[in-house]
């Protein structure tokens, strides 16, 4: 019978320290397609398997910039373009359908 090629290898560890040491060793041996699973976050492990940077901060930054600029543009559109108002620095003449 022909043996199927090994697809992968799994191992279970009792403590976060063992998991971390094993992850480091596997990475040092040159393995790259590795992952480590744990029921709680262990900061060092993601570093050990070579996952250094999360893209989440970039996504949040882009979202924040878009939201901020969008909010500003909305205010500009409302207070300067559609209903010019006097209270944003006295730039425009009296608003049309407003309470003042």
């Amino acid at each position: 019978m022909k043996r199927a090629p090994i697809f992968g290898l799994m191992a279970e560890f009792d403590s976060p320290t063992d998991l971390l040491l094993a992850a480091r060793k596997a990475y040092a041996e040159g393995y790259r397609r590795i992952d480590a699973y744990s029921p709680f976050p262990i900061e060092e492990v993601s570093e050990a398997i070579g996952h250094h940077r999360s893209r989440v901060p970039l996504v949040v930054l882009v979202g924040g910039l878009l939201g901020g600029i969008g909010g500003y543009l909305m205010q500009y559109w409302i207070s300067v373009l559609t209903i010019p108002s006097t209270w944003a620095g006295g730039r425009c003449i009296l608003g049309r359908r407003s309470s003042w």
Partner: protein
Amino acid sequence: MAQDPTVEPPRTGRAPVIAPGYTFATVTDKISAIVLSRRTTLGWVLGFGVGLLLTMVLLAAVSYLLVKGVGIWGINIPIGWGFAIVNFVWWIGIGHAGTLISAILLLLRQSWRNSINRFAEAMTLFAVMCAGMFPVLHMGRPWLAYWLFPYPNTMQVWPQFRSPLVWDVFAVSTYFTVSLMFWFVGLIPDLGTLRDRSQSRFARAAYGFLAMGWRGSARHWKNYESAYLLLAGLATPLVVSVHTVVSFDFAISIVPGWHTTIFPPYFVAGAIYSGFAMVLVIAIPIRRFYGLGDMITMRHLENCARIMLVTGLIVAYGYLVEGFMAWYRSDEFDFFMLKNRMLGPYAPLYWLLIFCNIVAPQVLWSRRVRQNVGALFGISIVILIGMWLERFIIVVTSLHRDFLTSSWGMYYPTKWDWFTYVGTIGFFAMAMYLFIRFLPMISIFEMRTLLPQAEVEAEAK
């Protein structure tokens, strides 16, 4: 973490954050069993039933309101704001403790937040829901509530951007969105745990759907931690900003009593004050009836009591400055407002408020009181009543006697005011009961991180 949370800090006499002797498995079992395997208790059914009943009262009161209009309430001219706004401010204030616990204490790395943050955040969500109902119902034509948002329309009508009421719309809707996101993101790893442990097919599918493919991989955790931290950073300013904007409703007008600069800090302190009282009112029964005293320890209760003591003193300072400014400004009407509060027709409520918010909580200076669960529960209820009275005094006494004696009036709530108010308390209770039954009320994975076994040994670092 510098200290082992299972050990009492030396020489302080304080309880540990989590009782010793737990393992990853026992922590998970204990919390998830409440949702998955333990029988629903009769107490739960009764409590939920009462909440449901009162929610029905709320629905009846709101239906009648929609038929008849706000005339069924006690509001009039000059007191146009009444119960609706009193309850709005009260509820939204209560929510603030949840955000403080989950966001600010996370950034400050306080390990004692871990067992109370989950249900405190749920409390925030439900409190903001209750709060949001009131201004909408108070508008008179609630079905046009969307007019509060700026959107292009054929009438060419825009919200009045100079009005703090419009700022409120933005503040509260942002607050609700961020709180919901924060709460849900915090739940994801635990939803994964529930998915893996649940026996029924439906529960597995439901929790699995909500867990969004959580597997606990190191990559997941890395992304998760940074997302959670960023959300905490976003939520932190909201702890201060939301109630600041709410306080502007009462700070930027020219009516005596609604014309002051002390309101923002004093409202924020008051919000956290009442919020922690509500946290204790929820935590103490939960801890008792679900036997969670090992996880919600005396340390948590005592810390909450300390925060109440501090914020209570800030609130007391706020009252003092309000009184001082009324005298110092040498404005006849301002001084009259103060006198009218202390000696006028609503004076009993004012002095009751001073007793509830300033006098009674001073017993928290004593360690014996802080260690006494029953006393803490009682004090928390007193504070919640006091903070409600504070909003009542601010709303009603400032409006009922302004500059012209000809426009003076009195405000008396009607039964519909009471039905609506008690109804929201019922809705809040019902939502909390559902939450306790169907979601882990203590963050399982954060409790695991607290255990000493979760530490990577020093030589491996």
